[in-house]
């Protein structure tokens, strides 16, 4: 076992332990703390695999964003009912079913990939296209990720790229998702403001009644 394998094992155990902690805990705050540990562990795994960009995005979006909002929500909702979560048997069974299904899908995917063959294709492709996208191991994954967004996938051969339908890239889905998020944001802001406006309009009426 090399040093990096031992580190990988430790960080993976941390991520899994955090995930188990989220499921076992009953208090929302502790769930958030375990979730933070688990997500930070996943970010650590990305760093160990030289995927700096994805790891940093994981930290920024999930640990620095989602968990902060979660604890913020817990603070706002206050004490008694929201602090502890009790799950019924039906909920536990449904969650277990979904979990097993997800595990099955992931396991099937992992088994279907020809890992040694894929690695060889990627490395040979990267050597031929060095000017296009630098080797991810030496120069990080930012360049290849950005090019893939525009439809230039570093792990595909030139013939594959020329085939119709393969060169679309991920720019359009990315834009659709971001517009969708913007709609959600504006909708949330509108709902929050509409309630306040209603309250303000109703105050003079109440004064008249009283």
């Amino acid at each position, binding site marked *: 076992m090399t*040093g990096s394998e031992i580190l990988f094992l430790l960080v993976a155990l941390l991520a899994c332990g955090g995930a188990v902690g989220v499921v076992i805990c009953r208090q929302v705050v502790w769930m958030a703390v375990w979730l933070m540990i688990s997500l930070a562990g996943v970010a650590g795994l990305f760093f*160990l695999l030289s995927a*700096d960009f994805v790891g940093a995005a994981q930290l920024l979006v999930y640990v*620095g*964003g989602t*968990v*902060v909002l979660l604890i*913020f929500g817990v*603070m706002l909702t206050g004490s008694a009912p929201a602090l502890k979560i009790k799950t019924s048997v039906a909920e536990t069974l449904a969650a277990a079913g979904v979990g097993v299904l997800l595990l099955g899908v992931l396991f099937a995917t992992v088994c279907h990939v020809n890992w040694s063959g894929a690695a060889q294709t990627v490395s040979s492709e990267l050597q031929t296209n060095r000017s296009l996208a630098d080797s991810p*191991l030496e120069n990080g994954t930012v360049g290849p990720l950005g090019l893939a967004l525009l439809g230039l996938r570093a792990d595909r051969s030139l013939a594959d790229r020329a085939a119709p339908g393969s060169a679309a890239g991920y720019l359009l889905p990315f834009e659709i998702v971001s517009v969708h998020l913007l709609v959600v944001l504006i909708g949330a802001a509108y709902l929050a403001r509409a309630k306040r406006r209603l309250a303000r309009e109703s105050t003079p009426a109440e004064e008249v009644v009283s």
Partner: protein
Amino acid sequence: MMLLAAHNLSEFFRETCRFPGFWPEVLAAVVHAVLVAAFFGLPAGVFIWAERKIAGRIQDRLGPTRTGGRFGWLQSLADGIKLLQKEDLIPGDANAPLFRLAPYLVVVASFSAYMVLPFSDGWVAVASKVGVFLILALMSLEVLGVIIAGYSSGSKWALFGAMREAAQMVSYEIPMAICAVVPIVAAGTLDMVELGRMQTGGFWNWLIFHDPFTFLAFFCYFVCATASCKRAPFDLAEAESELVAGFLTEYSGMRWSFFFLAEYASMFAVGGIATYLFLGGWDIGLPIIEALGLKAPGASSASIYLANLIGMFVFLAKATTVVFVQIWVRWTLPRLRIDQVMTTCLKYLVPISCFLFLGAALWPLAMAAGGGRSHWGDPPAVRRLDSASAVQPVQTPLALDEQEGAGRRSP
């Protein structure tokens, strides 16, 4: 001299000292961690003294004058010893494990930012190709510790402070990140060492003078960074005139001092990020290093080491200047109200930063269309090619193998 010539520390341990297996990496990691820890602790000691002195001068006082001589040099050390001796209190209503965890979270988040902060050309513990993005992500984790501290204290003052901090941080991260992108658009890299290399050769190469948008983005970034360090006029989380001490109300002794260790360290880190994004990194401002030929191709490793050492002091001076301005602002401007803080961010800083980002994206196109140059100095693309042709060690994020440790220890 073998140590100077080696590309990185783990290589030195493996090839010169002949350590077996993974011990070279472990030893190199330990040396890096100790050096980074030293640079993490140093700013707190220096800046707490500086804060007292500058505050004193601004308020027409002398500040510390007795501890350790005429200028009170040892004031920070005396503070530290006093804090060590204080009783470690945990309130009865507090969530004790979380209450204990929070200061460490804050310190770890601030400390990990120092891992990717270069101190000179190649003197960095973890050289990452996405250094700027990574350091901003790591610094954003600090808020988590503050929120947990406020929540777990079991006090309403602390809870209010933590809620303000959460709202403030989540808002100010947006304009800060957009402002950080403006010089990145001009430079075309997220690597902090690469950013530093691009800006060498004189102050006209600094990214702040690249175009009008980066110039304005610097000031926008500085405001957001001050807010992200929860420094006055944005110290709503603490707000001692309204909230006792905000999220710090229930903390005392060493745990309390950890929050301030992290605060001063992240002030310096923020100054360091600003230095690499806008103020030329380790560049002196005039092409002195280039004129002396210290880093010319074929220069001896000792002269490159000397140039890097000078660069480190230049970088430290620049980052310290940014921190000085933060201290100066704190003792000059009054604290904003929380609604004013949010208005400043959402109604002013976010639109301004979006405008600057758009301008920075369109600037090269406009310049190219006008047939002029896209840069006030040399175009960065040309210098990037120059620096790319120089010898560079393979940079992987985990290997912890840059030259920082190699340079600092005498052979």
